């Protein structure tokens, strides 16, 4: 893939200054650090792409850190799936249901169907309510 310059030409209009001019035995600072007024005619803020590049930062490295993330604040407790974590759920990695769970789910569905048939439960619509109210009124009269 060919990279395309999305920045405007004036970004490249920077005077060439040897880096050695701005160095000390202890620390090397970039041109922008030594001459911050260059920002006046180089509108970096608006033109440059989103980037990680710092002004020659001091670098550190560690193995890991603890961050107050949601994974630390929330714990998932599922007795059937003790291995399940919050990150699994957030990533959409749901555990497969066990044989027992599938069986229990089928039984629950059968029971629900039985109750529905027995009680003759129908969706409660405006027409049904009006009809029932009318029947009740006529019954009382």
């Amino acid at each position, binding site marked *: 893939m060919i990279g395309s310059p999305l920045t405007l030409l004036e970004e490249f209009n920077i005077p060439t200054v040897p880096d050695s001019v701005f160095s000390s035995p202890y620390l090397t600072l970039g041109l922008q650090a030594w001459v911050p007024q260059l920002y006046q005619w180089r509108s970096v803020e608006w033109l440059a*792409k*989103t980037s*990680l590049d710092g002004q020659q*930062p001091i670098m550190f490295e560690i193995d890991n850190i603890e*961050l107050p993330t949601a994974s630390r604040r929330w714990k998932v407790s599922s007795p059937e799936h003790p291995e399940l974590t919050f990150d699994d759920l957030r990533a959409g990695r749901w555990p497969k249901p066990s044989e027992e769970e599938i069986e229990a789910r089928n039984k629950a569905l059968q029971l629900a169907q039985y109750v529905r048939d027995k009680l003759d439960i129908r969706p409660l619509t405006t027409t049904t309510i009006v009809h029932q109210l009318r029947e009740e009124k006529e019954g009382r009269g």
Partner: protein
Amino acid sequence: MKLLQVIVELRHSAPLKLFSPYEELYRSIAGKELSEKQVPLPGFELTISEKRMRIVVDARHTAILLGDVPNIGYCTDNVMAVFKKINDLVKLPSLSRLGERSYWVEESQLNFDELVSACKNKVYKPIDIMRESMDIGVSFVLASGECRANIAFGPMELTQLESMFVFKPPKLPKVATFLDVDYYLKVEQKEITEAMLRAFVISGLNYAKEQSAKLMSLLKEG
């Protein structure tokens, strides 16, 4: 497409006080501004290898890179946690630009030349210069409400792909379609709030995900 790297960058309209301690001390004790601006201290860069994360803070910007991005929720959560830690130490100045850049990759079954040809056929008119081209890159600037997005995509081979990532992903394809979405908001001076940053990070990634789906659908058509 698979999301492989995210950078969230806050560009400040005024320097972070942390990097100009002498000016701050002078102002605090003398009760007036220093007549001449001091050189800001060099920036700070922290690499957290196990988390495949890099944090950069300097006088003018605060940025975080995530090289492990299993899902949008993980990104948002970690970005917010890092910015909260920095903001607890030093109040972040108002913003001049807020950007979120994400890299997406989709493995191709075609070889590189075939993929270049397929991209050309989908995107460009068959003029002579286009027929002769060996490689291409496509870029657009799109608008999405207040935000803008610099979008660039094209075919890549493994060597070029590897050079795109700060933390090399465990498995990269030999040939792939690469998409770079730089979603950003330019502002004169905007105070940063947690809610605003969270909403921006989520909307930026959702926008990029939508664009990646559109791109794949375009390339697969016909």
